[in-house]
């Protein structure tokens, strides 16, 4: 009787092998914004193992069906699990073969339901998801957190991106950004994150989704500048330190 109660997971701390306690391999921020023709999304390719920058070619953005693009931060294995759920969802949608297809709004809501239900079972998928897409000319950009909080906006970011990138976007985003301006704005955000987020790596991808489809760029690096005068003779005010 006692062991049965513990297995329910609500009370005891034994039998907790059934619930997620903390993430292991994690991705850092994802930043995305709406522009003239659709959505632009950027994420670096790092997979951290605690404080170690362990994996440097992790693709954290994937196309979903014809109309959507999903970016994730947090536990990479949970992201892969979500991709499997969505794969099945899109497969059944295509099997109807009836001219109807799931758009970004539908996928976003489906993900919200999944995340919230897992949270209710105390076994969350440890991710913050960014879902963007275009269908029938309508642009859509939304976010879902690991506890099922979801919302839509003109620009979104996860993790550190919320603190470092969103303020920049609030100041500089406007309707009908051109592709070039959108990329420049995203790169500005990613550069700040590269300087200030310890789990960021200098290898990123930018993805765009328009009515025509999804394009994910090949990996590239941002130029950084370290020649600040404060970095010359950093110990001049504190002899003996390093």
């Amino acid at each position, binding site marked *: 009787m006692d062991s049965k109660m513990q297995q329910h997971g609500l009370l005891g701390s034994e039998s907790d092998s059934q619930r997620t306690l903390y993430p292991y391999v994690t991705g850092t921020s994802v930043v995305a914004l709406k522009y003239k023709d659709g959505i632009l999304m950027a994420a670096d390719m790092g997979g951290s193992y605690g404080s170690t920058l362990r994996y440097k070619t992790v693709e954290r953005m994937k196309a979903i069906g014809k109309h959507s693009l999903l970016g994730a931060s947090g536990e990479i294995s949970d992201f892969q699990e979500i991709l499997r759920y969505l794969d099945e969802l899109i497969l059944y949608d295509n099997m*109807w073969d009836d001219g*109807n297809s799931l758009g970004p709004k539908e996928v976003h809501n489906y993900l919200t339901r999944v995340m919230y239900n897992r949270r209710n079972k105390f076994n969350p998928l440890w991710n913050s998801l960014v879902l963007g897409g275009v269908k029938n000319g309508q642009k859509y950009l939304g976010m879902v957190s690991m506890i099922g909080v979801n919302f839509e906006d003109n620009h979104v970011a996860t993790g550190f991106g919320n603190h470092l990138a969103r303020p920049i976007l609030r100041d500089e985003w406007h309707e009908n950004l051109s592709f070039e301006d959108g990329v420049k704005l995203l790169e500005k955000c990613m550069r700040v994150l590269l300087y200030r987020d310890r789990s960021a790596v200098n290898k990123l991808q930018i993805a765009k989704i328009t009515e025509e489809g999804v394009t994910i760029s090949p990996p590239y690096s941002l130029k950084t500048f370290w020649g600040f005068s404060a970095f010359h003779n950093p110990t001049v005010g504190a002899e003996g330190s390093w």
Partner: protein
Amino acid sequence: MFRNQYDTDVTTWSPAGRLFQVEYAMEAVKQGSAAIGLRSKTHVVLGCVNKANSELSSHQKKIFKVDDHIGVAIAGLTADGRVLSRYMRNECINYSFTYESPLPVGRLVVQLADKAQVCTQRSWKRPYGVGLLVAGLDESGAHLYYNCPSGNYFEYQAFAIGSRSQAAKTYLERRFDNFMDSSREDLIKDALMAIRETLQGETLKSSICTVAVVGVGESFHILDQGTVQQMIDAFDIAGEQEAPAPEPDADAEQGAAAEPGAGADQVGAVDEGVAPMDI
């Protein structure tokens, strides 16, 4: 059709390759009171004849709203129809909750058909004894489907089911080429005319029929009796031929009946106190 030794079980084939129980279920649909449906590019109209058993009782509900964008009219065993409507409402609301988007009609109809098929292949079940006219809107436009007890479904421009539906079908067959581009008003007028055809001489009044509409920018809803009676008055008395624009003050044209059948109706209408200006 006559009784034979292969019609006891739904899971027994006849030597001619027929499932008699399923065919008998379709007979049940033919015994129910008429229901008709027709659609244009942007609207779908459902109508049905509501006969109460006696003057003391109310009439049965045969048109159900399934969701804002889908409605259904039934003919046959109304109890079976209610159960299937509840199933359809459930499917729609579950889809809406998960995807925040309306369930495409075509998919609901397939789910309904598959549910009906199950009952034709289990020895402990019987087929549903109800035919459903499903009207709905989705991304690809306005649709009208007919779901059979056999588990088949078809898409229609216009259709009628139930008793004396052949008369309505004949009327609709003559006119259906124009339906795609019809206005909402013309569509409702054609629906009322089709209902009248199934009444075979009886006067058409709003107390014995129900009309429902769904369209672009218009949620599925049943028109209230007052509105229906107004339309009957406007369309009916204004001449049942090709007069397109309905006039409320149709006094002048009261006597101008061309067809004898329509004439009898008109006389009947005046007699029974359906005064044209009674709005």
